[in-house]
């Protein structure tokens, strides 16, 4: 995926200002930055949830807007934080929606096999007949991830997946992200607030400040004192744990 000169304006003010970057296939890329830096808006545009004002988002050599929505749904999945289902829906039924781009609402035997595998992969077997609104936040998040897995897309976009989760569930979430990339070969792009999660679990980091890309590179390229201090305007110390840079800020 290649993003060029992406612009988004709200009331004449550019929230995203000529942003360009290229997403590496088969890697985990984290979008970080302070509040209002435009990272979620960029996420919204590359997942077609938000309309762009100018620029090119070329996805497999074709601009995103030229893709048929249904075809795109087989290649790119997005999971946001707005998941309020008012319906009585069981975990299994939710995961089954992942097959919608392929089979509509009539599931084939192959679909059912993929659904079962996704449920298994997220270790949701014992919950599969429970209703979504009866699950805890962490379990619900896993159910949605299972749905995205069932959607079987090459790209998975996650908008702040660790939001509202405690340390245990958030860490588990990040491990899942890693597994999606390493075991299933997915390209994962995520918006994160917690930079240490980004440092520890992703391959590339793209940092935004004031609607512009402040720094884009591998974890080691971004995670240094000068860059981070410039981005967040706070003092940083960088430590190394398990060969990965972690930051301490105060």
């Amino acid at each position, binding site marked *: 995926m290649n993003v060029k000169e992406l612009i988004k304006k709200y009331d004449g003010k550019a929230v995203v200002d000529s942003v360009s970057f290229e997403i590496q296939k088969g890697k985990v890329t984290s979008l970080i930055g302070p509040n209002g830096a435009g990272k979620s808006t960029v996420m919204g545009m590359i*997942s*077609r*949830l938000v309309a762009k004002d100018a620029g090119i988002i070329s996805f497999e050599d074709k601009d995103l807007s030229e893709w*048929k*929505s*249904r*075809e*795109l*749904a*087989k290649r790119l*999945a*997005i*999971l*946001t934080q*707005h*998941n*309020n*289902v*008012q*319906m*009585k*829906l069981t975990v299994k*039924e939710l995961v089954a*929606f*992942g097959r*919608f*781009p392929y089979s*509509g*609402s009539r599931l084939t035997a192959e679909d059912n096999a993929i659904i079962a595998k996704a449920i298994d992969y997220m270790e949701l077997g014992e919950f599969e007949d429970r209703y979504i*609104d009866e699950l805890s936040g962490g379990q619900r998040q896993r159910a949605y991830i299972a749905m995205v897995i069932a*959607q079987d897309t090459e790209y998975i976009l996650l908008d702040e997946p660790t939001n509202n989760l405690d340390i245990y569930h958030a860490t588990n979430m990040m491990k899942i992200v890693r597994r999606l990339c390493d075991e299933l070969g997915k390209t994962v792009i995520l918006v994160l607030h917690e930079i240490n999660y980004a440092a520890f679990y992703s391959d590339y980091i793209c940092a935004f400040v004031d609607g512009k890309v402040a720094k884009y590179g591998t974890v080691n390229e971004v995670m240094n004192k000068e860059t981070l201090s410039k981005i967040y305007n706070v003092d940083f110390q960088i430590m190394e744990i398990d060969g990965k840079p972690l930051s301490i800020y105060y």
Partner: protein
Amino acid sequence: MKLTKQQWNIIKLVALAVLVLGAIAAFMFIGVNFEKPKLVQFAMKLRAPKLIAMLVGAFAIGAASIVFQSIINNRIVTPCLLGMNSLYTLIHTLIFFALGSGSIFAANDNIAYVIDLIVMTVVATFIYGYLFKKTNYNVLYVLLIGTVLSSLFGSIQSSMIFVMDPNEYDILLETLVASFDNINTEIIVFSIVVLAAVAFFLRKDLKLLDVITLGKEQAINLGVDYDRVVRRLLIGVTLCIAVATAMIGPISFLGLIIANLGRQFLKTYRHSQLIIGSGLIGMLALVGSQCLVERVFNYSVPVSVFITIGGGVYFLWLLLRGKRGSI
């Protein structure tokens, strides 16, 4: 053998259909003198159009309410909140006010019906289409504006009533209360044709409703052209409500009751089942209460009284039940 939820729901729907058939039989045959064929024929001729009107109206309202609630993602709204009922009342009052009860537009049922249908559809599509576009499909705004419009239409109507001849008002009031007594065959046939056309044109969009309930983001993620589908469905909802209201008059709570009863009864997200279920419950409620009105209360209470009282209590119960996530 343990039945799956799907099989259970099909059994439930069949049971509902049997109950509806029972209500139909009760409505058609109780109090008919079967010894004289002429009398039987006369009773059927009187009762059959009423029955069909109720069945069609109930189904249209039930389906429209379910679709509307699913789009809005809220179980205690009905299309009435958009002010369709007040619009109907306003149109009728306006015609009586401007042209008088003796004019052909008020006195001829067919013409009155066509005017209702056209004005309601055009005005509703225009106003709500514009509102949805203007607010960027923010349903909360649209609901708020709908409520304001509702009072606006109501105020205009009541100020006209104040200066109206009391005799005219008497005749007007009759058309403002839901009833099945002045329905003729042409109106019924025309309504069925319109509803069938709506169902036909929206058959693909209706299949996407299950996905749309997951929310806008998820629907787009799964490859649904959200804005377009929602726009088409809302026009369909408007048409259904316009047809039902023009045919039997405003019944404010009916949609709310039957849609919620349907959801509670079936506990599913599948709209094919929800729509059929709510439609059947609506038929049961309407035919059942009309049966009571005619055979027990001897026409002394109009059917809308039952629906409004029952619906009001049920609505309060829905609000006060206070379960998390129930609203």
